[in-house]
């Protein structure tokens, strides 16, 4: 397991050549083909995600949404034998270029996982972990970061009196909001959320969705969800994945009321999947 394990990367325009014309969006994927060893998992996927907008990735399970999401913060690097063709750009720069510092990339592109995974530490130490490893030592600064991120994650009121208690004692919904706060503490620009509410009850889910709505102002949020109603509620743009192919990508309203592709309509209306 290593952060930054070398993988083979080929871009259409050559390794260090000029990047293809971009739309200027925060995150842009261009003609991405992705392979696990011999198996191809993503076929020619191109889409863009931007700030002040939530982009949802929907589709039946196993069709590549999470794989695609993990490309954006290069978490797939942890798996041996993977290969990527095409490019993934952050602010117009290829994140798979050999000059890129993966560790810094992951600071800029944060991730919240499907099952909340707080560290076996106190609430305070969970949130402070990120800033600490990136060099913040001063106690008052950390206090401030902890408070502001927990506030933004709508958790501060519930935990402000027990910051030193174990994070594992929180409820599922609280733990997930803690993980969101933890991710926010390193000041990312992009927030990737992999089915963040799938393990939560409806009340906790509603809180998370409300949070996403508040956060999208300042972050580029890309969320994977298998819950179509959630995608409809929460997102501005939706991408429908099926078997590794991006079938359709467009404004959420359009995808859900008047999709261009028949396959999309079939999925939305529940004819399968």
């Amino acid at each position, binding site marked *: 397991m*290593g952060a930054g394990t070398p993988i083979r990367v080929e871009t259409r325009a050559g390794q260090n050549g000029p990047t293809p014309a971009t739309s200027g969006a925060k995150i842009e994927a261009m003609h991405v083909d992705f392979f696990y060893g011999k198996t191809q998992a993503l076929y020619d996927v191109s889409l863009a995600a931007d700030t002040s907008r939530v982009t949802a990735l929907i589709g039946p399970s196993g069709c590549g949404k999470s794989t695609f999401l993990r490309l954006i913060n290069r*978490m797939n690097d942890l798996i041996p034998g993977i290969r990527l063709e095409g490019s993934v750009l952050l602010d117009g720069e290829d994140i798979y270029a050999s000059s890129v510092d993966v560790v810094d990339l992951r*600071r800029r592109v944060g991730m919240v996982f499907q099952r909340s*995974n707080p560290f076996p530490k106190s609430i305070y130490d969970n949130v402070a972990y990120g800033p600490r490893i990136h060099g913040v030592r001063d106690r008052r600064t950390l206090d401030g970061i902890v408070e502001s991120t927990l506030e933004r994650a709508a958790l501060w009121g519930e935990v402000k009196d027990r910051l030193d208690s174990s994070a594992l004692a929180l409820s599922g919904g609280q733990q997930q909001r803690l993980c969101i706060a933890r991710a926010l503490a390193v000041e990312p620009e992009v927030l990737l959320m992999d089915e963040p509410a799938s393990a939560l009850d409806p009340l906790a889910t509603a809180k998370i969705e409300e949070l996403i709505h508040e956060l999208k102002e300042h972050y580029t949020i890309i969320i994977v969800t298998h819950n179509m109603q959630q995608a409809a509620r929460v997102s501005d743009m939706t991408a429908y994945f099926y078997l590794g192919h991006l079938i359709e990508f467009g404004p959420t309203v359009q995808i859900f009321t008047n999709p261009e592709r028949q396959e999309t309509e079939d999925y939305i209306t529940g004819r399968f999947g």
Partner: protein
Amino acid sequence: MAGVLPEAARIARATGAARSERVIARSRLSRLAERIVEGGVFLSAWIAILVIFLIFVFIGREALPLLWDTPQPGLEAEAVTLDRLVGPTYYSDRPPAYVWQPVSTVPKYNLVPLVVGTLKATVVAVLFAAPLAILAAIFSSEFAPRWLREIIKPTIELLAGLPSVVLGFFALMVLASWLQDLLGLTFRLNALNAGIALGLAVIPIIFTVSEDALTAVPNSYREASYALGANQWETASRIVVPAAVPGMFAGVVLGFGRAVGETMVVLMASGNAAITSWNFVEPVRTLSATIAAELGEVVFGSPHYRVLFLIGILLFAFTFVVNLSGELYVRRLKERLEGRTAG
């Protein structure tokens, strides 16, 4: 059971196949045999428990008479009493000392030199083995590429498979001379020599338990750490190792227990002199080695014989407690780690 397969029985009769009828009828008898075998299974289960109990009883049986044996008149000096076991011997011409000297005109059965000797050897062993084993386990679990791991783990298994008599042999023939030349020691066989060899015997168990503790840390923690921009070293040192510390500690405790009970290594490598001192380059005598060295020459039933069995009971009780607490601790840790992350 004979009536269970009526169709088969009918066909058997119709075709005149006498053998299959016997098979169908045989199953009634096998019910009884089955009961007997199952009884055997339950009996075997009890044997493990019984053995632990018997060990305690039969070793204690040989030692217990110490409590109530009244010495023959004139031989009071030979009697073994509690303060003889732990209190110093008072000489008329020398300062009082703790002496284990069972074979002498006035036998002395003081256990203190033996306990001190055991402590010296095992402390050296743990100080030598624990850092090596724990660091090696961290390397193997967190940093080593797969091919290197495939070399380290079999090495540890091989080391674990070395008979202790071979380790003692090596310590006596080779290690002792090296140490003596390296450090200019007076005594070739001493606590340091025995301790290092003992440490070698104990490395595998500390390594294995520590490695288990490290791999038991859920991967989701590592992922969360990487996703926040931490590198391998930070993730290992701030998240994984701290979570595994209790398990590593249990490993060291188990290693310590193993070192206390180990006999052959110290028997061959420590010089076997019951000296009470805190000098680590003098010979020592441990509790277990004392039993092994002297049991062959005692008179059956003599106080000396009984004291040796008493030492045996002490060793058994000690390792029983250490192992029990080590096991319980590791089990509770596993439950806690699994219970928490299941939510």
